[in-house]
């Protein structure tokens, strides 16, 4: 028995060696990416895991505190609960809605002639490539009585005093969701546009011979299954984006926002990292966010497997 195991192990080792030799070029080719990935992604993740078990204020040496950051975060941090709630509302609304919107618009645009299509693609994609384009929403939702929306409402007599859009906890989250949806036609959308063009037209012919009756069946049984890679890619991006929302909250609603109304997990993390000098705690938040993202990606991949079945 023992002998067997030994044999199989050395067999395995020599097998690996043999294969490594054979695929030498592949390893060389992947080396630059792997080095960078390891240095700038893998190591930081593990460092963050380590720091999450310490008290670390960035100016003094970290001291080991065990899991107390996690217990404090999960059991006694009320603000974190607000952040989780906001992030979930955000993710549940903007993730799927943005995803579906991206796909539908890409699908509609696909019917257009190439030149017109290019123009529309640029139009829809523009908000997400132009960096901080969302700042124009600040002008629209300015709390000043001369802000665009306030000015309009007051001129038409809907209200007599300005509404403090981005300082009133009632409106903040709704506005942020609106802006995020406006921005959601990003890289995922481009992937869909490309994916739709990559579907082999002969499949549709074959499908109509096999008894496809309408466009919806065509979509479900042919188009979607043929562009599964793009769907997965888009979904992963949508989920990561939805969980990683912080910029628009910081820039539109302030940091921290009034009564934490626009607080998300990432702004909570920034709060501890940048303002409170508590890197250990911030790392614990990052770890939790990391887990949440991984789990939701798994769930979504499982759901996407059902496409076309």
């Amino acid at each position, binding site marked *: 028995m023992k002998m067997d195991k030994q044999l199989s192990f050395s067999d395995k080792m020599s097998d690996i060696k043999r294969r490594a030799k054979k695929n030498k070029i592949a390893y060389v080719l992947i080396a630059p990416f792997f080095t960078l990935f390891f240095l700038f992604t893998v190591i930081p993740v593990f460092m963050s895991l380590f720091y999450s078990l310490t*008290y670390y*204020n*960035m*100016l*003094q040496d970290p001291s080991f505190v065990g899991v107390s950051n996690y217990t404090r975060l999960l059991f006694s941090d009320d603000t974190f609960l607000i952040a989780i709630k906001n992030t979930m509302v955000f993710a549940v609304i903007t993730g799927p809605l943005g995803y579906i919107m991206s796909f539908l618009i890409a699908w509609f645009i696909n019917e257009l002639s190439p030149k017109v299509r290019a123009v529309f693609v640029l139009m829809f994609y523009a908000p997400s490539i132009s960096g901080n384009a969302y700042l124009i929403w*600040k002008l629209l939702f*300015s*709390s*000043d*009585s*001369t802000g665009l929306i306030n*000015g309009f409402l*007051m*001129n038409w*007599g809907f209200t007599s*005093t*300005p509404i*403090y859009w*981005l*300082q*009133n*906890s*009632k409106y903040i989250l709704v506005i942020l969701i609106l802006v995020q949806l406006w921005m959601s036609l990003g890289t995922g959308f481009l992937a869909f546009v490309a994916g739709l063009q990559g579907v082999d037209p002969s499949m549709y012919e074959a499908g109509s011979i096999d008894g496809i009756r309408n466009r919806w069946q065509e979509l479900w049984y042919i188009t979607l299954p043929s562009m599964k890679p793009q769907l997965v890619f888009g979904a992963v991006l949508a989920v990561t984006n939805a969980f990683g929302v912080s910029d628009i909250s910081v820039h*539109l*609603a*302030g940091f*921290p926002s*009034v*009564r*934490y109304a626009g607080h998300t997990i990432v702004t909570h993390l920034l709060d501890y990292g*940048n*303002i*409170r*000098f*508590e890197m250990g705690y911030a790392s614990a938040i990052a770890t939790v966010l990391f887990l949440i993202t991984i789990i939701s990606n798994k769930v979504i991949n499982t759901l996407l497997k059902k496409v076309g079945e």
Partner: protein
Amino acid sequence: MFKRTICVILSVILLITALSVAVSAAEDDNRLLIKVSGEQKDSYEVYRSQYENTENAKAEISVKTDVKLQEGNAEEWSVNIPETALYRIKITYKTIDNGNLEPRLEFRIDGKVPFSEASNLGFSRLWKNETEIKQDSLGNDLFQSQLQLHDENTEYLHDSDGYYGDPYVFCLSEGSHNFSFEAMQCGLEIKEIVFCPIDELLPYRKAIKKYETDGFKKADGEFSLKIQAENMGLKSSAMLAAVADKSSASIEPSHFKNVKLNILGGGRFSRSGQWVEYAINDIPEDGLYRLVFKVKQNECKGINVARTIYVNGEIPFAEAKNFNFTYSSKYKNIVFGDSNGAFLIPLKKGKNVLRLEATLGDTADICRRIEVSLNNLNDAYHQLVTVTGTNPDIYRDYDIQKKMPEVVKLLGEESKVLENIADDIEKLFGKSSSFTAIIRSLVILLERMYEDPYDIPSEVSALSSNLSSLGSVASDMKRSDISLDYMLITSEKTEIPSAKSGFFKGFAFGFSQFMYSFVADYNSIGTAAGADSSVSAWIISGRDQTQVLRQLIDSDFTPESRVGVELRLVSDVTTLLQATLAGVGPDVAINIPQSTVMNFAYRGAVADLSGFEGIDDIKSRFTKSSLDTLSYKGALFGLPQTSSFPVLFYRADILNELGIEVPRTWDDIYRVLPILTQNNMSFGLQTSDITNASTAGVTSYGMLLYQRGGTFYSDDGKTSLFDSDIAIDTMRDWTELYSSYGMPVSYNFANRFASGEMPLAVADYSTSFNTLVAFAPQIENLWGITHVPGTYNEKGEINYIAPVTVTAGIILDGSKNKADAMAFLNWWSSDKTQARFGSFLESLLGAAGRYATSNINVIEQLSWSKLQCENIKLQMRSTVGIPEVAGGYFTWRYLDNAFREIIDDGVDVREVMYACNKAIKEEMAYQRDALSLE
């Protein structure tokens, strides 16, 4: 029957509506109305036209005076005038105080100001470059510091705004008169007053003959002399310093890598009345020479920019007055002359002085007319707004035609006036421009308002924005900006060299500039040679500020202390944190916000300064409040550098029209608020807003709280006191100002203050002052600052305390050279350095660069007027430093949350404050525990 009932009901409804309208109209009539002023009756224009036919005086009368006038003092002289005639008056004077403000006098004849402009006569100061142009260790030219001279200077009584190009003319009747001068702004020593006849300038053709008979021959042969614009002599303003233009290889001198100060201009030589002198040495013989300017006039499109040329103190002929430079985007050689050829100027053998004076030239008259029109329309706008508000209900009939027919008439008149102005501009400069386009669109708007007064309410906001455009037209047309590279004095036959650099030279220059940008380290601001030891200093500031500091270090600090300073410009505190974390931080960091200082201090990253020798002397430079913000338990972690605290900004003109005195207490404010509201105006008190600093709310609340004797934290700094009765009452009163008194929560201070919608506002003294100076020149002299509204204490005294926030200079704990670092901080915060830094900065950036030093002795050495200076010092002395406790970031966060909860949802104040206090308290306890603070 049914019809009749409906009829009755309808008529009853009609009757009620009519009645209520009548009642509201009657209410409206009780408003305070602002008078429309119209054109001033006592302006110089009117005065001058009365004496068209009076004779010119025949002889000069001079009066030796030798009197020192301090600001606010007046002096009178009795002079016998031999005959009724027209005179110009010039005075020989010396400035007696430092600073950049223009000395201003009021002139009276027999106790009466002859015309309104004579109550505000400006005189120039004398400046020169303190040193030659020097280079830093990297070879870049350093800005030249400017030195003020208190030498004698002679100037006519003239309009320092430049609206009247010629000096004022006074008609004096025969007999003895009492003439008096009063110093309105800054002091002046008057040596001599001269009453002289008006001397008419000869036209060029006649003047040249006269010079020729006087022995000046046209220079012949080859002769050319180049005068670089950066080599200035005397000048009227510290702003007139050489600057660098890197745009082209043709500018002399230029270098692809290093900064070279090579031109005069770039926006600095742009105010009418500014003048600069150049020495012309080495003229071979008396003669008439040609003058060539290498200039660029790329700021004023559509109009000409004028300069008056003086040769040896005199304007040589009529054409030398208001010589025009037309628009061009590139440097060009422009020969002083007209289409018939060059105007030759008479120069003596040897040394001569050439003076260029900025004037408004052809635009003077137009600018003045626009200004008058703008004033009238602004008055009309204010008056309209008292009835309609800035956001009128367009469906309501405000009955403007009936209530203020004179305003409607004025709108019609001004539309004609402005149309004439636009026509005149086009006639003068031969084409329409953005200026005329703005004026014409206002004309159309005014005509529409005049013809259909019922539409006026819907046009009120359009009027407001059009008026601010007209305001910017007025101030843009007044800017007479040129950039001067050099001047040439040549004989008429000499060929003028090209102003261009040639394609290959230009290409090589641009290409090397581009390549160099990859290797240049723009953040390192040089290091000084000739030192025994050195410290590294990081500054979070602008590039100009850093350059100035570099220069002061090189000229003052290093030679004295033998300590060199490596100066580096960093963008924000995050950089400092990361560098400290990595162990590569500097010895000294300056301009660090107080919260960062204390955050670093609680974590042991900043050195305690209280142990250094002589620290008590250094401390005496600052107010206790500003030191409090940087102290913890007797340790001092930094020296304050800039302080910001709120003061009250007021629009004197509007308060005057409303008959309100500047409020001194909160009781006064409560009295004033209804009057402001009735006139659709508001009072501004900052709240936190994402566009404001996040701590603005804490400043406002803290001001109210500390005035009532409350505090934020307990004395030991261990816990917060927001559950105390004082804190809760203050919160209630503060929020009521917004919820019950309708004060705006969110507003743009500069906009509303300039437009007059917000004639009173509590705002940060330095940033708001600088913004207003730069942003709203049209309300210059119409506003003032004073201490914040106060609260009476038990003794009946007014307590107008307000919180101060500082930025500081710190020594990092990791520094190996703390003694030298401290010597540097000591030098930097000293009276002399701070004053020099402040005035240097102001000569570089203008009044908008006024420096908010923490050193209380320095305030009066900056260019504040006497009154402003007193008010600022008064407020600065009654500031309080809110301690930066561990976990203090929760304070502004939760105070703001509490404020919003009360304003938005009307939640019970006490309940909110208890919750707020609990959160702050817990965070403070947690942070104290984590940092193991006792």
